[in-house]
C-alpha cells in the first residue's frame, strides 16, 4: 500500500501553513503578545463569550449577559472574589429562626445614575417586575422559594378586597377556575381568561410618575382602552381618593405608568366569577410565626365563588415587604437556608422604575438607561462590543479600579483565543479556550490556568424506555471515567458522583475536617460556605466491569424478550468533546456489555426538544449550578414534576426524602437527609455522572484582581492593569499559575 503523494500546490500550501502552525505556538513565557499598557492602566478589555441577549437584570439569563449586567447594576449583595455574597446595597441581614424570613438592611449611600437614592422600594419593584406575567421573564423561576411567587407569576394568586362569600378582606386566594373553566381548559382553548385587573378610563389616562401632575405625563392611554393594574399605592384594601394605580398599557412596545385610581372607572370583567381557595393565613414578612403556627398545617379550605371585581392580583400577596426605606423583608414558603445565596442574583438587583415604565422593552438603550452599578453604559454596538465607564454616582468608588471597561462579544472560541493571542483583549471569559488547546497550554504558559467549576457532565437515561434498574446500573458500572481526561485533555475531574465539587485530595486540612473525610477518600466535596458548611455527595456507581455484567444478567432475566439488543445515544453538536465522549461510551458499552450503540448527533434546539419531550433513549447532558448548593441547584431536577426531569425518573422514596428535607432548619441535619435522597437517586441510575467541569482561564500577566471564582462571576470592576508588572517580584494580587 502506498500513501499517495500530494503533488498539488494546494497541498503544498496547506502543508506549509500547517508547518507554520505546528511551530506556531511560540516558546515564550506567556501565550502570545503582552502589549504595553502604560497608556491605559485603568482600561480593561474583556473578551466575553458572545452577544448578551439584553442588559435588563429582570429578563437576561445567560452567563454571557451577567458580565455587563453585574457591572451595571448593584445588588443587595455582590459577588466577592470567591464568588460568594458580600454586602453591597445591604450592609447586613437577619435570618429568622425558622429560616423563612430574611431581612436585609440597606445603607443610604446608594444612588441611581440619575441621582435618585436607591431604596428598599426599588428592590421590591424588581421582585414584582420579575414575577409579573407582563414581564414574561424566564427568571421568575429564580424566585420560586418566595411565598406565592409562582402562583403570582401565573396570575393565580390574588387578594380579596372586601369581605365576601366567607372570605375576609386581605385573604390571599388561589384561583382554581375563571368563569367555570379551569386554567387547563383555558390553556387548551389557547385563550386567556378574562382578568379582573383589567380596567378602562372613560376619559384618556395620563401616565406619569407617582404623584406627578398631568403636565408631566409621558404617555396617554386613549379613553376606553384596556390597561392592567399592576400595583396600588397605599392600602389596597381601602383605596381612597389619594390612591394611585400603576398600570400596564400593552400596545406597541408597551408602557407602564401611575394614574389616580379613581380615573380607572370602568371594570370590564367585574362580573366574571372566580372560583378561589384561601392558600395561607395572611403573612407579615419580618414577623416570625409562632411555633404553634409553624407546626400546625393549614386546614384545607373549601373553594368558594367570588365576583371578579373583588379579587385583584396585587404584589401584596408576595412574600416581600418594605419595612422602611432601608429595610426589606422576604418570606419563603419553606425553610430556605440558601436564600442569602441568591441575594446577589439578577432577580434581586433593582431596576429603575422611571426608565422601565416609559420604555419597558427599550429602557436599556444607551439613550434611556439608568444604572446603579460601578460602571455606566457608554455605547453598545450589537454583536461587537459594549463600552462601559466608571459611574460617578456609584456609592463605593474606592472599590472601582477601572475607568473604562470594554466587553467584546466573541462567541467563537478560536477567534477569541486568537484575539487574545495578538493582545486584542486582556482576559478571556471562562472556558473560552478551545478544549483541544489545553494540552499545549497547560503548564507551558503562565497566563493560563485551570480552575474548578460548578458543573457536572453526565448522561441521562430515559427511565420509561429503560424501566429496568439493573439495566441502567449496568450502563453506569461499564464506564471507566478515568479515561475521559486522557482524550479530552482539559483537566476534567472524572467522577461517578452527581453533585459536583472539588476533589477531596485537593482540600486543605481544615476543609477535610469540615467535610468529615480523610485525604484518601475518593471523590469530590462541595464547599458551600467557607469554613462552615461542606457537602460530600454519596459515592456513585464507579467503573466495575464485573458488576456491570452481573447487573446486565439480572436485567436480562428480568426483561426476558424485552431486553434491548441495542440502544441509541443522542448528543448535540457544537462541542468537539461531546462527540469524543459519545464515541468513547459507544466503545465502552460495546466492549464491556456487548450492547451495540447507535450514535445520533443533533442540532442544539432539536436535541433540547427531543430530550425534553422524551424522544430519546440515552443522551448526554450537562448541568451548571448558579451557586454551590446541592439542594437548591442540583437535586430538584429529579423530582417528578420538575421541568428538568428529562430522565422521567419518578421515585416515591426520593420524593419522600426530599419532602423530609424541606422543614429541617439545621443546615447540617438538612444535608444529612439530602445525602440520603441523593443516594436513592444515584443508586437507581437515571443518570450516569462522568466528570466535573473545569474552568479554563486566560489573562495577561499585567491584569490584577481578576480572580476566577467557582460560579464564574468575577467582579470585573475591581480589576486593574499593572503596567510595571515586569519589574514586580512575582505577580501580586493574582493566584499563582
Amino acid at each position, binding site marked *: *500500500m502506498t500513501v*499517495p503523494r500530494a503533488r498539488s500546490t494546494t497541498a503544498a500550501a*496547506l502543508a506549509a501553513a*500547517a508547518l507554520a*502552525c505546528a511551530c506556531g505556538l511560540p516558546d515564550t513565557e506567556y501565550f502570545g503578545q503582552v502589549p504595553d499598557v502604560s497608556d491605559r492602566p485603568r482600561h480593561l478589555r474583556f473578551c466575553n463569550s458572545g452577544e448578551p441577549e439584553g442588559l435588563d437584570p429582570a429578563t437576561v439569563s445567560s452567563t454571557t449577559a451577567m458580565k455587563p449586567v453585574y457591572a451595571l447594576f448593584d445588588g443587595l449583595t455582590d459577588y466577592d472574589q470567591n464568588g460568594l455574597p458580600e454586602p453591597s446595597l445591604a450592609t447586613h441581614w437577619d435570618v429568622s429562626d425558622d429560616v423563612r424570613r430574611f431581612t436585609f438592611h440597606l445603607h443610604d449611600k446608594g444612588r441611581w445614575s440619575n441621582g435618585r437614592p436607591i431604596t428598599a422600594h426599588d428592590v421590591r419593584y424588581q421582585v414584582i417586575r420579575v414575577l409579573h406575567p407582563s414581564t414574561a421573564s424566564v427568571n421568575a423561576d429564580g424566585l420560586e422559594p418566595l411565598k406565592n411567587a409562582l402562583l403570582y407569576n401565573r396570575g393565580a394568586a390574588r387578594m380579596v378586597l372586601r369581605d365576601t362569600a366567607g372570605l375576609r378582606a386581605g385573604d390571599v386566594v388561589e384561583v382554581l377556575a375563571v368563569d367555570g373553566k379551569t386554567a387547563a381548559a383555558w390553556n387548551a382553548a389557547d385563550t386567556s381568561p378574562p382578568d379582573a385587573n383589567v380596567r378602562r378610563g372613560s376619559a384618556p389616562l395620563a401616565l406619569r410618575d407617582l404623584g406627578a401632575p398631568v403636565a408631566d405625563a409621558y404617555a396617554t392611554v386613549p379613553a376606553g382602552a384596556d390597561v392592567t393594574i399592576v400595583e396600588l399605592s397605599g392600602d389596597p384594601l381601602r383605596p381612597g381618593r389619594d390612591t394611585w394605580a400603576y398600570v400596564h398599557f400593552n400596545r406597541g412596545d408597551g408602557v407602564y405608568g401611575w394614574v389616580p385610581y379613581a380615573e380607572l372607572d370602568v371594570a370590564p370583567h367585574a362580573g366574571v366569577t372566580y372560583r378561589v381557595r384561601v392558600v395561607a393565613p395572611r403573612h407579615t414578612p419580618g414577623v416570625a410565626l409562632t411555633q404553634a403556627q409553624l407546626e400546625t398545617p393549614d386546614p384545607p379550605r373549601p373553594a368558594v365563588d367570588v365576583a371578579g371585581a373583588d379579587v385583584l392580583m396585587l404584589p401584596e400577596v408576595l412574600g416581600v415587604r418594605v419595612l422602611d426605606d432601608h429595610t426589606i423583608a422576604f418570606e419563603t414558603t419553606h425553610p430556605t437556608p440558601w436564600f442569602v445565596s441568591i441575594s446577589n442574583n439578577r432577580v434581586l438587583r433593582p431596576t429603575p422604575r422611571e426608565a422601565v415604565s416609559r420604555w419597558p422593552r427599550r429602557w436599556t438603550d444607551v439613550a434611556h438607561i439608568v444604572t446603579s452599578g460601578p460602571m455606566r453604559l457608554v455605547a453598545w454596538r450589537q454583536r461587537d462590543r459594549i463600552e462601559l465607564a466608571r459611574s460617578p454616582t456609584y456609592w463605593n468608588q474606592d472599590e472601582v479600579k477601572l475607568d473604562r471597561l470594554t466587553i467584546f462579544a466573541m462567541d467563537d472560541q478560536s477567534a477569541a483565543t486568537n484575539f487574545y493571542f495578538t493582545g486584542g483583549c486582556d482576559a478571556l471569559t471562562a472556558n473560552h479556550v478551545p478544549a483541544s488547546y489545553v494540552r499545549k497550554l497547560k503548564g507551558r504558559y503562565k497566563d493560563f490556568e485551570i480552575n474548578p467549576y460548578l458543573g457536572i457532565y453526565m448522561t441521562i437515561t430515559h427511565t420509561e424506555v429503560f424501566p429496568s434498574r439493573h439495566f441502567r446500573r449496568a450502563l453506569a458500572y461499564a464506564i471507566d471515567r478515568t479515561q475521559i481526561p*486522557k482524550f*479530552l485533555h482539559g483537566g476534567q475531574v472524572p467522577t461517578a458522583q452527581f453533585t459536583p465539587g472539588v476533589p477531596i485530595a485537593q482540600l486543605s486540612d481544615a476543609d477535610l475536617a469540615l467535610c468529615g473525610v480523610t485525604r484518601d477518600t475518593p471523590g469530590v466535596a462541595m464547599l458551600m460556605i467557607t469554613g462552615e458548611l461542606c457537602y460530600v455527595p454519596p459515592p456513585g456507581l464507579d467503573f466495575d466491569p464485573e458488576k456491570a455484567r452481573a447487573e446486565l444478567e439480572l436485567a436480562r432475566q428480568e426483561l426476558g424478550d424485552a431486553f434491548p439488543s441495542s440502544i441509541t445515544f443522542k448528543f448535540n453538536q457544537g462541542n*468537539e468533546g461531546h462527540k469524543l465522549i459519545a*464515541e468513547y461510551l459507544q466503545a465502552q458499552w460495546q466492549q464491556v456489555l456487548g450492547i451495540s450503540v447507535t450514535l445520533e448527533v443533533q442540532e442544539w434546539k*432539536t436535541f433540547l426538544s427531543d430530550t425534553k419531550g422524551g424522544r430519546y433513549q440515552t443522551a448526554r447532558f450537562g448541568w451548571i449550578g448558579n451557586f454551590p448548593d446541592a439542594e437548591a441547584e442540583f437535586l430538584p431536577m429529579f423530582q417528578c414534576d420538575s421541568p428538568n426531569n428529562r430522565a422521567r425518573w419518578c421515585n416515591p422514596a426520593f420524593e419522600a426524602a426530599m419532602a423530609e428535607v424541606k422543614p429541617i432548619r439545621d443546615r447540617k441535619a438538612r444535608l444529612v437527609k439530602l445525602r440520603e435522597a441523593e443516594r436513592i437517586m444515584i443508586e437507581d441510575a437515571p443518570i450516569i455522572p462522568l466528570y466535573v467541569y473545569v474552568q479554563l482561564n486566560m489573562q495577561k500577566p499585567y491584569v490584577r484582581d481578576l480572580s476566577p471564582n467557582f460560579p464564574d462571576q468575577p467582579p470585573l470592576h475591581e480589576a486593574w492593569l499593572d503596567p510595571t508588572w515586569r519589574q514586580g517580584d512575582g505577580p501580586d494580587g493574582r493566584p499563582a499559575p
Partner: protein
Amino acid sequence: MVATTAPARVEAPAGRSLWADAWRRLRRNRMAVGAGVYIAVMLVFCVVGPWIAAAVGGLDATTQDIDHGAQGPSWRHWFGTDPLGRDMLVRTMMGGRLALIVAFTATAVALVVGVTWGSTAGFVGGRTDEAMMRVVDVLYGFPVVVFVIVLMSVLQTKSLVVLFALIGAINWMTMARIVRGQVMSLRHREFVEAARALGAGPGRIVARHLIPNTLGPIIVYATLQLPHVMLTEAFLSFLGLGVQAPEASWGTLVAEGAEKMVVYPWLLIGPAVVMASTIFALNFLGDGLRDALDPQTRKD
C-alpha cells in the same frame, strides 16, 4: 487552438464516432490523464486501502487506544491518531468512501434535475420559463440550513440516501440556470432552426441538439459541483445532520481537523491534503472531458 469548425452543424454523427473522438482527444491531454489516474489511485486507496491496512497493520477506523491518542504521524500510524487513538489513515480512507459516494450520487441527482429543468425552461421560454425560473428563485432565497433541519427532523431519518437526495436537491438550481442560459442563447441558432424545419419535435431538439451543445458548461459545472457537494456534506455533518459518528467522511474530518489545527495539525493535514488533491484532480479531469466532449471542438 483556434477553432475551425462551424458551430451550425445540422446533425451530430452517430454516437460512436463522437465518443471515440472524445476518447482520442482525452488521451492526448496528459494533465487530464494524470488526473484520471490519480482519481483511480484514490478510489483504490479508499476502497481497497482499509482491507490492506487491516491485513498488514491490523488497523481499523473504530478501535480506540486512548493511551496512544492524539499522536503525530509514526511508522505505525502514518497519518497520526485522533484523540481516541484511532488511526487517521484508515479513517481518511473510510471517509473517502463516504465522501465519494455522497459526492458522485448527489451530483448526479443535481445534474439530472438541473439539466431537465433548465433546458425545458430555456427551450420552451415564455411563461413556462418565467414560472420555472421563479421556482428556482424561491429555492435560492430559501436557506439551506432551515430546509435541511426541517427535512431531517420531519423525516427522522439518518440514512445516507436521504443525505444524497438532500444535497442533490439543494444544488441543482445553479445548474438549471446555467443550462437555461446556454439553451436560450442556442435555441435560435441556425442548426436548431434547421432541425425544426426538418420536423424534429421539441424533445428531440432538446435532447439531440441543445443538450449536447451545452455539455461543455454542464461538465465544467458538474466538476465544480463535486467539491461543492463535498463541502455541503461537511457543512451538514458539522450541523449534526450528515454522516453519523463514529463514521466520518472527508468533510467531517477536515472540519474537525480545522478546529484542532493549532494543536494537532496532522488531524487536518492528512484528510485535507487527500480531499483537496482529489477535488483538484476531479477538476482537471473535468477540464479534459470538456475539451474532449465539446461538440463544437469535435474535429479540431
